[in-house]
């Protein structure tokens, strides 16, 4: 109603008021008078007064009297809190046990005395109207009633209450949630695991009847007074989850979901399987062992939750155990003696087991709850567990794996190591600056700077005399010390945490790095934008290694903007720029990356001098980028100059130089300077053998590059020797790592070059099996090897089989790399070759023509 209309009603109201109490004559006179100036108003009020005089059966009594049956009806149908004594189906409610998000839980007894035990009756909040849902409900209920396992609270009955709400009747369990029980009883780690084994077995028995729980959490995993496990609510989630909208306004989505315990696929709306329960069991196990949840998940909107889950990375139990605060220890209830030993206790097997159960991808988790239980038992018995240890370099390796061999391989090592090194130096600078800023804390800051430098030195394999595992252990010790020693100085602590994060990044311990960086970011707060910006940059550098280039770029650009606004020191800003340069490099924007890195290098030269280690390392980065751009002369100059400077500061045998030698060797090999290339390959291999040992992954990488060099020069025996040694190294670390596949592929090439196509075929097939596990079939490596396999097959005369495979290879490479890519060109060439052999000349010519056309397009670019 417009303003005019409501003003109008004001006039009506005023006139009505005036006339209401007048007698009939006075009223008529007054109305006649009004009618002369406003006939409509007079008529309206007259009409209202006429109605006023007549009785109304509806409005003259309160609604309860006017429509009593309506009120009664509403009460009957509308779901509301139940009351004691109320009947629900054949059950009679006795007392309220609890009220939660889904509804109420009552203690109940059978009203007709047919069943003597007290039961737990769950009365859900919302009503179910549709007949179809009721039918399904009753059908499912029968399946669930068949779940008989001592560890599962039995479903005794269920149905729809008179008010439309579904209810379930369960065996009543007197007990406590598993976490509460463990705390109250102060259970040792072994006893906690024992309980989880029992829980897993119960879950497994349900899984074997194809019932998934979907909402496992401590409050559904009860421990009775006798110490026995009882799972509650099995299958109820499924029962409710499939309710469709019945067309009325009662859209039903009763699916319970407890964000903290839900598997990623549940939150992201992907299919739910038995692996979903395995994940939730993993979360409970994590909580039982550390008193904390593996991931912090936001409460709030579903989209925020999904976004958080998308960002989650792997779980490291020991990292959680080391970060235990008083509240977590309280939740754990471990005796202090055991609590102190906890981080050590959780290292190794348990960490591996929990990580496996909490894998992001359902197919990478334990295949069943039984398998999880088995591994826990193996651990308790001191036998080796089955969960494959996911090596620290696996994720970083996957990332490298997405890129081409050769330059890229050397480049990632170069760039990431520079990150670790300069990050540590950077933070040492900051620590020193903080000390200058506050005289009172100067001694302490000096101490922490020393601590940091010593950390860095031990992380350097040369200093530690080999195995970088030792360095890692020291790093872990260091970050532990850091927590207890510096809690009163958040700024300094944040500096050091960032440093630790950088070093962890350099070592490929990305999950730990992320946690350290996040903690640093938290400590920074909002107060100092520049300090916060460096923490963001640290996280950005981690994102690069995680392969999340978008995330990295966003963080780094944000950080840069903040640093520039705060007029931060030029070196600080330059380091962030260099990180951003890495992002551009991986995005194949090498020209932009080169410009950025060159500017960075100039800042370093100006601020620290060209001789400084950090300047030399940035010069080497510049070389990598020039190399990638095909500016080989400039690249070679940069490599050689940085190598000379590094040799002078670090000595010629420093492991860091092994990378310089490899980068230069790859370049020289391509330029035909074979002898010098070989010398450099051998020298870097020597350095690595000596500093890292014969079994180190980096030694394996040097061997692999050397093998590649031998193959390309036809030195097949030497290639095979180097390749086999590399294969042995990688296999020992992790048989499912893609480096193993690369070695197998390389050995296949050697066999093929010798003309032994049968051996080549079987090696290629092994490589493919590995790639399928390690990289998946979306990866070009897989299809490159498949292409090689097709030639081995063709060479053995099985042309049809070869052709079929080649068409598959071509289609896959076209999809992965593009229709006009070098990969696609190669695919057409393979096919042309086979067609020619088969005498299908016209088709072969067409394929060749297509390959040439692509080559033309690529050359034009």
């Amino acid at each position, binding site marked *: 109603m417009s303003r005019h209309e409501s003003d109008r009603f004001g006039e009506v109201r005023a006139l*009505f*008021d005036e006339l209401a109490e007048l007698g009939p004559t006075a009223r008529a006179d007054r109305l006649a008078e009004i009618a002369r100036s406003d006939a409509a108003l007079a008529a309206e009020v007259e009409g209202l*007064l006429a109605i006023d005089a007549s009785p109304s059966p509806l409005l003259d009594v*309160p609604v309860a009297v*006017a429509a009593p049956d*309506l009120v009664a009806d509403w009460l009957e149908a509308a779901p509301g809190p139940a*009351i004691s004594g109320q009947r629900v189906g054949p059950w009679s409610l006795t007392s309220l046990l609890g009220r939660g998000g889904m509804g109420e839980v009552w203690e109940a007894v059978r009203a007709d005395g047919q069943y003597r035990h007290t039961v737990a009756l769950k009365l859900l909040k919302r009503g179910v109207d549709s007949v179809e849902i009721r039918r399904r409900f009753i059908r499912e209920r029968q399946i669930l009633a068949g779940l008989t396992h001592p560890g599962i609270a039995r479903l005794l009955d269920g149905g729809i209450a008179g008010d439309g709400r579904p209810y379930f009747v369960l065996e009543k369990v007197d007990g406590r949630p598993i976490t509460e029980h463990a705390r109250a009883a102060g259970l040792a780690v072994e006893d906690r695991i024992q309980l989880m084994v029992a829980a897993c077995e119960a879950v497994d028995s349900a899984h074997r009847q194809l019932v998934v729980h979907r909402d496992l959490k401590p409050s559904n995993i009860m421990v009775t007074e006798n110490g026995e496990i009882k799972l509650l609510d099995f299958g109820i989630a499924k029962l409710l989850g499939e309710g469709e909208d019945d067309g009325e306004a009662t859209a039903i989505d009763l699916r319970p979901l407890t964000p903290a315990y839900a598997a990623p696929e549940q939150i992201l709306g992907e299919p739910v399987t038995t692996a979903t329960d395995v994940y939730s069991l993993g979360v409970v196990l994590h909580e039982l062992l550390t008193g904390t949840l593996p991931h912090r998940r936001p409460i709030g909107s579903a989209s925020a939750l999904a976004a958080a889950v998308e960002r989650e990375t792997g779980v490291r139990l020991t990292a959680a155990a080391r970060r235990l605060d008083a509240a977590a220890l309280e939740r754990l209830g471990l005796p202090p003696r055991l609590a102190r030993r906890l981080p050590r206790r959780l290292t190794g097997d348990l960490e591996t087991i929990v990580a496996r159960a909490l894998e992001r991808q359902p197919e990478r988790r334990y295949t069943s709850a039984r398998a999880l239980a088995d591994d826990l038992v193996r651990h308790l018995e001191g036998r080796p567990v089955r969960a494959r240890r996911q090596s620290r370099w696996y994720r970083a390796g996957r990332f490298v794996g997405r890129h081409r061999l050769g330059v890229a391989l050397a480049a990632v090592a170069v760039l990431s190591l520079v990150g670790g090194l300069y990050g540590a130096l950077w933070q040492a600078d900051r620590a020193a600056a903080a000390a200058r800023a506050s005289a009172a804390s100067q001694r302490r800051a000096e101490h922490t700077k020393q601590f940091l430098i010593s950390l860095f030195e031990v992380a350097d394999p040369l200093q530690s005399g080999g195995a970088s595992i030792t360095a890692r252990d020291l790093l872990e010790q260091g970050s532990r010390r850091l927590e207890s020693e510096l809690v009163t100085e958040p700024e300094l602590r944040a500096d050091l945490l960032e440093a630790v994060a950088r070093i962890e990044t350099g070592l490929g311990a990305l999950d730990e790095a992320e946690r350290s960086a996040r903690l640093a970011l938290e400590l920074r707060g909002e107060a100092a934008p520049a300090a916060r910006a460096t923490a963001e940059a640290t996280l950005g550098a981690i994102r690069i290694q995680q392969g999340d280039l978008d995330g990295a770029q966003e963080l780094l650009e944000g950080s840069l903007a903040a640093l520039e606004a705060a007029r931060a020191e030029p070196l600080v800003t330059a380091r962030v720029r260099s990180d951003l340069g890495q992002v551009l490099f991986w995005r194949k924007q090498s020209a932009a990356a080169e410009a950025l890195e060159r500017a960075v290098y100039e800042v370093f030269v100006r601020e620290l001098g060209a001789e400084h280690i950090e300047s030399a390392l940035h010069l080497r980065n510049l070389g990598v980028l020039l190399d990638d751009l095909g500016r080989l002369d400039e690249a070679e100059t940069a490599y050689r100059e940085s190598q000379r400077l590094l040799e002078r500061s670090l000595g010629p045998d420093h492991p860091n130089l092994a990378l310089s030698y490899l980068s230069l060797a790859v370049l020289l090999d391509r330029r035909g300077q074979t002898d010098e290339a070989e010398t450099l390959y051998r020298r870097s291999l020597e350095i690595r053998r000596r500093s890292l040992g014969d079994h180190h992954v980096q030694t394996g990488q040097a061997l692999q590059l050397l093998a590649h060099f031998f193959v390309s020069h036809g030195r097949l025996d030497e290639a095979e020797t180097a390749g086999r040694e590399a294969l042995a190294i990688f296999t020992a670390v992790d048989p499912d790592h893609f480096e193993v596949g690369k070695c197998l592929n390389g050995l296949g090439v050697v066999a093929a070059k010798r003309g032994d196509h049968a051996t080549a075929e079987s090696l290629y097939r092994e490589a493919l099996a590995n790639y399928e596990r390690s990289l998946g079939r979306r990866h070009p490596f897989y299809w490159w090897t498949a292409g090689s396999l097709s030639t081995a097959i063709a060479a053995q005369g099985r042309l049809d089989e070869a052709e079929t495979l080649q068409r598959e290879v071509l289609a896959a490479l076209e999809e992965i790399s593009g229709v006009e890519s070098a990969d696609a060109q190669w695919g057409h060439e393979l096919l042309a070759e086979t067609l020619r052999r088969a005498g299908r000349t016209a088709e072969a010519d067409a394929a060749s023509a297509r390959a040439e056309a692509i080559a033309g397009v690529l050359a034009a670019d």
Partner: protein
Amino acid sequence: MQPDDISALLRAAEGGDDAAGERLFERVYDELRRIARRQLRGAPRYETLDTTGLVHEAYLKLGRGAAWSTRDRAHFYALAAQAMRQVLVDQSRRRTRRKRGLGAVALTLDRVDVGVAAPGDELLALDQALLRLERADPDLARLVELRFFAGLSVEEVAELRGVTGRTVKNHWRLARAFLLREMSTAADPP
């Protein structure tokens, strides 16, 4: 339920906090149902229910121990009355929908000679008329809720609103006449 809680919610709601208002409404609503259900237990199905009693009881229970100002009380009753209006109108709508599905004619014919439509339909018509009154004069609409849905007497409303009984009575007469007119002239049943 903590009485202080309710007072705080009331104040927050008055201060324009929509979320608090919503929570408060839910609580009032739940409480009404709980009380209604208890009164209904064991009673014959169509026995007259004293909704005024319901609202009073809800008030007593929710406000127990708290020093409520007149404003709080007025606010509470307004909310309770609105809750009653909402649930009963919803209930009518549900019933009418069901009826349309299963032989609506027979049911309405039953009522024809009494001269009153089925209470469900009447109530829906009233709700529509009330919406129109609300647009013309929200104050009168609230009054109807208090008198008709919460069942408060003229005196009780006068006390809550701090006006004379005569004023309430006159306002009620106008509101009532307006509603009856709207209901009789409404072209289509809602």
